[in-house]
């Protein structure tokens, strides 16, 4: 026997996964999470239908975005297909006062936070670098430099501590941060440093990884040989792995984690096992690195299908509702389509609007220079014709 200890006698490659809904929709009871869901009224049939509708809507928006990209309306699209439960669940698990810190593929989270999908598309169209007011919608901008947002989340949580809105016992007051990042991003040093800071200051932050099995072409096994959920335990940050295609497990676990953080018990880490059903982005060709069989396998675990089956088992869904959802989703897609097609390109002079909050002579001068330069052509045009 070796003197060197691992998480569990010898390297732990097994990690239990919390699941409330089986692939066929069957509900498994779960003592702690059922209590959490019940207390927060998060699993009523009406709610469940709501989640179903949300997932259908966001999937339709996502598919429409892909087709808008094909039409040249977007420069790129990063599809979240297959991650709807992982995202809608996490989004709804947060309370309004919580602050969410997403990466760039959190369309379901954004939807649950009330961010209109076209605001996401703006970024991929290339008219803006981030389309909403983070403080108004309590959602950080989409972040592209992987891992960079994680310390922001911890810092925001440290601000909450200083504001006295942690551990007061008042549900409307107590606030936490949900920090999202992918399995690939988990390797960035800044994510590890975030664990260090969060643990050290016992900041009210929940780290949430959607382990969708891939970081572009690289499987999660390259980032970690053991289940990612274990990563944070080296900092004494408790963690759990949940089935990310099971909206109830996600909801329960993330809500429970946020409750714990809000109560002042420090950070928690949740790994959500899911699957990126589409290619990495519209620029990617997943067939170059992953077998169709794997995609097939996960198609059968489709999170929307699963919730629908569950609702069917409960007798809480009918054809009419399903059809209405599909219709609304279609309408949403059409709206998106028209909104984006009708979107005019911004006047480039706006690039000079916000590099600084306060006046800056170089920027001002360059702006003038730019305007004078552009005016030349207008003069020419007027003069010439």
């Amino acid at each position: 026997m070796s003197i060197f200890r691992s998480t569990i006698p010898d390297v732990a490659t097994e990690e239990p996964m919390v699941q409330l809904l089986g692939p066929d929709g069957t509900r498994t009871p779960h003592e702690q999470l059922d209590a959490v869901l019940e207390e927060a009224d998060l699993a009523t049939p009406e709610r469940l239908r709501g989640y179903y509708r949300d997932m259908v809507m966001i999937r339709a928006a996502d598919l429409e975005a892909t087709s808008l990209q094909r039409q040249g309306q977007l420069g790129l699209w990063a599809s979240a297909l297959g991650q709807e439960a992982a995202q809608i669940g996490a989004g709804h698990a947060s309370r309004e006062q919580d602050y969410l810190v997403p990466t760039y593929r959190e369309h379901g989270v954004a939807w649950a936070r009330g961010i209109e999908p076209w605001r996401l598309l703006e970024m991929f169209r290339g008219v803006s670098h981030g389309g909403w007011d983070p403080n108004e919608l309590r959602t950080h901008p989409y972040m592209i430099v992987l891992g960079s947002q994680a310390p922001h989340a911890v810092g925001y949580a440290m601000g909450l501590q200083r504001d006295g809105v942690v551990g007061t016992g008042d549900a409307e007051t107590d606030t936490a941060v949900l920090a999202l990042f992918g399995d690939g991003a988990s390797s960035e040093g800044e994510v590890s440093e975030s664990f260090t800071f969060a643990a050290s200051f016992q900041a009210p932050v929940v780290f949430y990884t959607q382990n969708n099995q891939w970081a572009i072409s690289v499987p999660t096994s390259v980032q970690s040989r053991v289940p990612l959920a274990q990563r944070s335990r080296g900092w004494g940050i408790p963690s759990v792995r949940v089935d990310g295609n099971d909206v109830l497990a996600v909801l329960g676990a993330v809500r429970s984690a946020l409750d714990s953080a809000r109560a002042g018990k420090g950070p928690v880490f949740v790994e959500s096992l899911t699957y990126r059903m589409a290619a990495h982005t519209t620029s990617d060709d997943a067939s170059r690195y992953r077998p169709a069989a794997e995609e097939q396998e996960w198609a059968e675990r489709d999170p929307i299908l699963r919730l629908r089956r569950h609702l069917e088992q409960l007798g809480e869904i009918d054809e009419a509702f399903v059809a209405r959802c599909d219709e609304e989703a279609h309408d949403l897609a059409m709206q998106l389509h028209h909104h984006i097609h009708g979107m005019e390109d911004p006047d480039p002079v706006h690039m000079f609007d916000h590099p600084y909050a306060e006046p800056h002579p170089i920027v001002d001068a360059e702006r003038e220079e730019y305007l004078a330069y552009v005016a030349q052509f207008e003069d020419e045009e007027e003069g010439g014709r």
Partner: protein
Amino acid sequence: MSTSTATTTLPIAKAITAGLRDAMTADDKVLLMGEDIGPLGGVFRVTDGLHAEFGSQRVVDTPLAEAGIVGTAVGLAVRGYRPVVEIQFDGFVFPAFNQITTQVAKMHNRTSGRVNMPLVIRIPHGGGIGAVEHHSESPETYFAHTAGLRILAPATSHDAYWMTRQAIESEDPVIMLEPKRRYWVKGDVDMDHRPELSPWQAAVVRPGTDATVLAWGPSMPLVLESAEAAAAEGIDLEVIDARSLAPVDYPTIADSVRRTGRLLIVHEASVLGGLGGEIAARISEQCFYHLEAPVLRVGGYHLPYPPARMEHAFLPDLDRVLDGVDRLLEH
């Protein structure tokens, strides 16, 4: 209790301490973060006493990770705080470079102006203290090129106090380059009267007619001394303290050069690709018909900062500055 009293004499380090203390007293959203800034008061003692005065929620000894320090400060700023971060030495800012370049500098722009980044990154900077590797760097060039950042480089106690206050009040992120080898040089500070000169303006600190010498931060005493030495030889130098390195105050510099016809720029950073190059390029353009000599530069060589026993040869000194002046006047 504020330390603000009428004009007083303080070393630069203590003027910064006073600036921090007064800023913290004036606005309880101001907080300090960094390595060893708490009970120890920082390795240069700039935060000395502040931990005892304001407690560990406002003077935060962080884990040892610069990206984490700057990154959490970004989050605090989004939440409405005004974090002042200390990087222990210039050479240790690089682990935070991603946060500074892709996050601090860009967050305001990214959010279309909806989120401000009133964040200050204090960096003891420059060489000449006989230190080991990585403790004598002059990284201003990297930040000056990065849109979204501002840089202040105080050279006097008075500027040190007020620039600390003004950097903290700025809604934009500010890199404060503190002239570490001058930390204990004393000077007058008037904490009661806000300076009329904006922190973003350069100051003509010695009027002259034969040539302009521009420098900042740790090099200011050197160029002033050089001007005295030159005066003894009958050469009348105008000396400008750039004060702000981002943005650089070009009107003040160009105005001077139009009068003197000559410009020498002195800094510790490597000349090659250093900030002096940008200034030389702009002034050469703006003053093309006034320049009687090319803009010259005296600074570090294109080498890693050398071991301490050789640094005197790497750094600009009186003779090298005067040599530069001579070459300038030869034209």
